[in-house]
């Protein structure tokens, strides 16, 4: 309660507001039940499950070959990363050696996917803050170019089904690499364009500076990973800590901010912009290093696809955090249990703690900055 209200001895009451499953902040369907004291949030309860499509149940009831095609929908903005997480877990169980060119292609498409995911995040974040359909045309223009490249290599704009257990599915033509190189050449200028509009914008600064501070200890307690925690004083990036694929050979910088007392939403924003630039550099390096010719698939992709018996957990760094897959297999054509460890599920659990004390206008700013994808939360 503000000081004036206290002085006048007014009786106040709390109001319970439902930020219902359908709202224009296009992150999917999340229901927030907010208890407000005037304008300030006292308690927030997210109600999940409006998009629970039983994908773990499908893992038990679909064969390995069928399930690979379905998991792109788990995190639809980074379908390559999701396929890679499951492929990596299955390859570790199966002790299958992935060909080298396939590894290079995997890194290439997943860094492209990281850029396109952050671009969409940027566009929709500005829509959440109110820049409706003014700014988002810019990042979507770049996203369209990336989706055209994806369509050539994987056949689909969004649900790629490209990274399979044992390798990748298709080898692109040499022309594709040339066009990707052109994209990487003009992309830094585009990011400069976005930064010119957003980073020093006084409205944006007023809405995001000091809002939603995430202290490091709190984040570690809740198991937050990814850019949301790297803005708060840790450099935990799975590509450096537990390197997989060809990341040990690449020379790239992990962006993080040394603020253990907590990073606010502006810090999370600027970190993702820097990550986009860094992914661009990674793509340039991989394009120079990729070997000419070679195998791209180590396991035969048909209905007879099997994974050896065993259990294992394997994870990769997706644009939102650690995306992991815990597989229990008994050697038959279906898995016994596939459990997904989704970064959005864990990052969203911190939202009730972050929202307390903020006015209701900041709810969308904070929620957008955590970068949550609802099918990732609900599976």
């Amino acid at each position, binding site marked *: 309660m503000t000081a004036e209200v206290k002085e006048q001895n007014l009786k106040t009451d709390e109001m319970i507001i439902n930020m219902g*499953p359908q709202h224009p902040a296009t992150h999917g*369907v999340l229901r927030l039940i907010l208890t407000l004291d005037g304008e300030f949030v006292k308690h927030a309860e997210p109600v999940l499950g409006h998009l*629970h*499509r039983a994908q773990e149940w499908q893992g038990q009831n679909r064969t390995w070959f069928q399930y690979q095609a379905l998991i792109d929908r788990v995190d639809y903005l980074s379908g390559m990363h999701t396929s890679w997480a499951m492929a990596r877990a299955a390859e570790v169980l199966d002790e299958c050696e992935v060909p080298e060119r396939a590894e290079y292609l995997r890194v290439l498409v997943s860094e492209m996917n990281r850029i396109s995911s952050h671009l*969409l995040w940027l566009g929709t974040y500005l829509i959440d803050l109110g820049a409706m359909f003014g700014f988002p045309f810019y990042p979507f*223009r770049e996203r369209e170019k990336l989706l055209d490249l994806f369509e050539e290599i994987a056949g689909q*704009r969004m649900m790629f089904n490209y990274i399979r257990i044992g390798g990748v599915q298709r080898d692109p033509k040499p022309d594709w690499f040339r066009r990707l190189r052109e994209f990487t050449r003009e992309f830094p200028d585009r990011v400069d364009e976005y930064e010119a509009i957003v980073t020093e914008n006084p409205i944006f600064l007023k809405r995001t500076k000091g809002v939603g501070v995430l202290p490091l200890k709190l984040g570690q307690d809740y198991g937050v990973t990814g850019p949301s925690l790297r803005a708060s004083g840790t450099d935990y990036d799975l590509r450096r800590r537990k390197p997989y694929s060809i990341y040990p050979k690449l020379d790239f910088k992990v962006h993080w901010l040394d603020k253990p007392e907590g990073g606010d939403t502006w810090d999370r924003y600027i970190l993702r912009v820097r990550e986009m630039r860094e992914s661009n550099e990674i793509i340039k390096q991989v394009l120079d290093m990729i070997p000419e010719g070679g195998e791209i698939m180590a396991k035969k992709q048909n209905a007879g696809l099997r994974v050896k018996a065993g259990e294992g957990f394997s994870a990769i760094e997706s644009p939102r955090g650690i995306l992991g897959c815990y597989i229990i297999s008994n050697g038959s054509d279906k898995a016994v249990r596939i459990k997904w460890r989704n970064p959005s599920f864990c990052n969203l659990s911190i939202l009730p703690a972050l929202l307390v004390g903020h006015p209701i206008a900041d709810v969308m700013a904070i929620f957008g900055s955590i970068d949550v994808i609802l099918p990732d939360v609900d599976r």
Partner: protein
Amino acid sequence: MTASEDEKIMTEGGLSTSAFSLAVPEELRDTVTLTSVSAFTEFLSTYISPVANWARSRAVWPLTFGTSCCAIEMMHVGMSKYDISRFGSEVFRATPRQADLILTAGTITRKMAPALITLYEQLPEPKYVIAMGACTVTGGMFNDSYSVVQGVDRIIPVDVYLPGCPPRPEGILDALLKLQEKIRAENYASRAAGLYKQRAVRYVDYDTGLPMEDLVEEVKLEMQQDV
């Protein structure tokens, strides 16, 4: 007013049931005042209809209803490469009270179904539904899933079905154009009178989980027994 009552009034001597008039009681059926105004507007609507439909079909404003992956393609169709506003859908309204069209982009689960039914009921007439994506057409790849409604036409009536997973933005535009053709083929007065009330194809009552035909049968049996 159920459909059968509507039919009864329509067949009795061509009296109109346009929404511009109140329901006429039995005793006053042969008076001239109210019915002639509505008959005049009926006559006029044959001329107004083409113009009204021409205007209506080219300004269909969708609701921002994006549940899941198809929402991204819906965003792309609103952006500059595949621009939907050149086909009339200038803005996506956030509130159903100001929208004409629900483009159900994304899987509808059992938990979400009541919300969608509420949204559909909150849309003012004339309202349309395009079922976008395989999940809303028939349940899609979540065919045996325990929590997915197998096709949104079980809970709300659908005008245009758009398959794809996700459908390309050009596909969404194609569905929108088909919807516009459908709007132009309507009679505006009949639409206003509520004669185009569509039933959902496999209409299911959400609360009991029973098909609507069974429930309607039950109610009819009860009414017959009362009589």
